[in-house]
């Protein structure tokens, strides 16, 4: 490891989660963290490491093993003025809490005509590629994007992670904050020590190009950029847009990019059918049909349950598959 990589503030994505939580807890004493193994153990991925010692057992709470309980009590706490940040250990275990998220967190503001709100952030590591057992690799962001009243955020870099998490915690509405665990420790980035926010609902252009727009997020951003670099060697220049927030979508960024290129490819690791690529495609067709020069390509996971790890590399879009998709959009 070089000296620079060890420098203060040079963090991995999971360290940025921890740094973001620390900053917000220090800034606002209503922010509390709760979940399974988040306290003494510091989280199974170490996302809450050291918070228990720093803030104590009333603010970093090891709960019983009960996902609906964790989120359902967080709904009550949020309604009562706290800013709970419940952790669901893996996205594949979020379903027991689904009812509380959908029926209550998302609806409390509407149900009470704004007299109550539910400012909580449900954090969950999502996605495949870590050689994990069944139910540990899910990427089901579309379930939550489909629900009015929720916001859905997926960072792809350490710097964004800290800033987006701060925005999510300060947001007056419930946020589902999905962390790409495949790249929890894949690379480091300079992250400011002080707290800062990256606004929700704003995409980030990771690479500029005039030939094909490529829309992606989370763990898929890296193989997408890899594919884009490889295509650049052939003279195909991709405009790679990392959406960062999936609800609300940054439609302006999508349309602006597409109007320049007229061609698009959407990359996500979730299954194809009912996935966000369909929504993005429809949005482009509604807003920019006359700019369109080729069918919009979707490079996604297959419509199968997420496989055990012997076959997960075939399931997950990798650079070669993404490259093919972009090339199809380019060559049409």
């Amino acid at each position, binding site marked *: 490891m070089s000296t620079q990589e060890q420098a203060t503030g040079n963090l991995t994505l999971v360290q940025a989660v921890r740094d973001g939580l620390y900053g917000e807890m220090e800034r606002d004493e209503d922010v*509390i963290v709760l979940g399974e193994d988040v306290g003494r153990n510091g989280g199974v991925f170490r996302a809450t490491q050291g918070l228990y010692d720093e803030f104590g057992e*009333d603010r970093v*709470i090891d*709960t*019983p093993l*009960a996902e*609906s*309980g964790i989120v*359902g*009590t*967080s*709904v*009550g*706490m*949020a*309604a*009562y*003025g*706290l800013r709970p940040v419940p952790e669901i250990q893996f996205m594949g275990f979020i379903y*027991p809490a689904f*009812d*509380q998220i959908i*029926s*209550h967190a998302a609806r*409390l*503001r*509407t*149900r*009470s*005509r*704004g*007299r*109550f*709100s539910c400012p909580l952030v449900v954090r969950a590591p999502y996605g495949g590629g870590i050689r994990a057992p069944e139910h540990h690799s899910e990427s089901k962001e579309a379930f939550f994007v489909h629900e*009015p*009243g929720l*916001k859905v955020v997926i960072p792809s870099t350490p710097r964004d992670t800290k800033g987006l998490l701060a925005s999510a915690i300060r*947001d*007056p*509405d419930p946020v589902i904050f999905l962390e790409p665990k495949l790249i929890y420790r894949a690379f480091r980035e300079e992250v400011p020590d002080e707290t800062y926010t990256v606004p929700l*609902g704003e995409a980030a252009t990771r690479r500029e190009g005039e030939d094909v727009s490529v829309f992606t997020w989370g763990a898929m951003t890296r193989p997408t950029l890899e594919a884009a670099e490889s295509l650049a060697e052939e003279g195909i220049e991709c405009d790679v847009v990392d959406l960062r927030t999936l609800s*609300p*979508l940054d*439609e302006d960024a999508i349309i602006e990019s597409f109007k320049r290129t007229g061609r698009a490819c959407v990359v996500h690791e979730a299954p194809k059918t009912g996935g966000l690529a369909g929504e993005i495609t429809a949005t482009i067709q509604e807003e920019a049909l006359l700019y369109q020069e080729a069918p919009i390509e979707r490079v996604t996971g297959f419509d199968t349950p997420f496989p055990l790890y012997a076959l997960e590399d075939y399931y997950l879009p990798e650079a070669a598959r993404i490259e093919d998709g972009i090339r199809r959009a380019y060559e049409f």
Partner: protein
Amino acid sequence: MSTLQRDPGEQVRVLDEDGRVVDGATVPDLDDEELVGMYRNMRLARHFDQRAVSLQRQGRMGTYPPLSGQEGAQVGSATALAEEDWLVPSYREHGASYVRGVPLAQTLRYWMGDERGNELRELNVFPVAVPIATQVLHATGLAWASKLKGEERAFLCYFGDGATSEGDFHEGLNFAGVFDVPSVFFCNNNQWAISVPRERQTAAATLAQKAVAYGFEGVQVDGMDPLAVYRVTREALRKARDPGEGELRPTLIEAVQYRFGAHTTADDPSVYREDEEVERWKRKDPIPRLESYLYEQGLLDDERIDAIVTSVEEEVADAIETAEQFERPEPGAVFEHVYAEMPRRLREQARELEQLRERHGDEELLE
């Protein structure tokens, strides 16, 4: 024997079916005005309920969940709340909410399909929860947050016998015990979860005994005896706010009672239960029981009862008139309060609805 520390199968009772004080029972310390007030609130809840059902039958209100038979549990428990306490209802607590100060017209407004009926905050009443048992977790979370803020207030959460079979009931009570939060779980065991009898919910002899598994007291009370309900709830709320040495704050109260009517106006109970059973439970009706007791105490006579009946009828009629005169919500209101700030798509959809209305007019659009 203490009110709460007892065998969960040993029901707390104050009045017998004829309104006489049960041997050895302590009548709770309520002044004359409070006792007559409880009686009036029960009469009002019953009359409101009857009017609400007929409003639904006449097409003036949507599906409505009746409460007749459950007035003793609702009024007795809500009367025990201190001003700073909170009430976390299911969807049937119209009587308890009224005691808490929720205007009848607001309750009607909600059941007439207008969310503004839920537009309450200052009364410490949480919005109605329609899914079963989900509010048990909210009550635990509210109480937990209050405790973390260093307050001393209690949270009274209502649910039915069916709710005790749900996972959220278990998780809510389990968290409450582990984190020792100031919540009181009030189970309105009205014997029927729509068509499924209490015996089909659990093989346990009582619902109250489930508290034992969470480490705190569970107590069964005659839910059609308002004085017993008041006494038990009062004690449980006190313990939640200020537990004694070695006491855990939460309590599970099982109020044994009966729903005289249907689950909702969309339900026909004659399909699943016998009239004879209904008649048997009607002998326990909480209203004549308290009436007899108050008569005996010299706090009520025919004249005073007539006056109460008249004032209750007037109050309910006024509330119905008010509710029916509320303006319908503006169509665009569906887009408000989904988020604190309306996102672009919702703004666009709100505009789209407005344009549709302009182009077609409401009459054609809604045909």
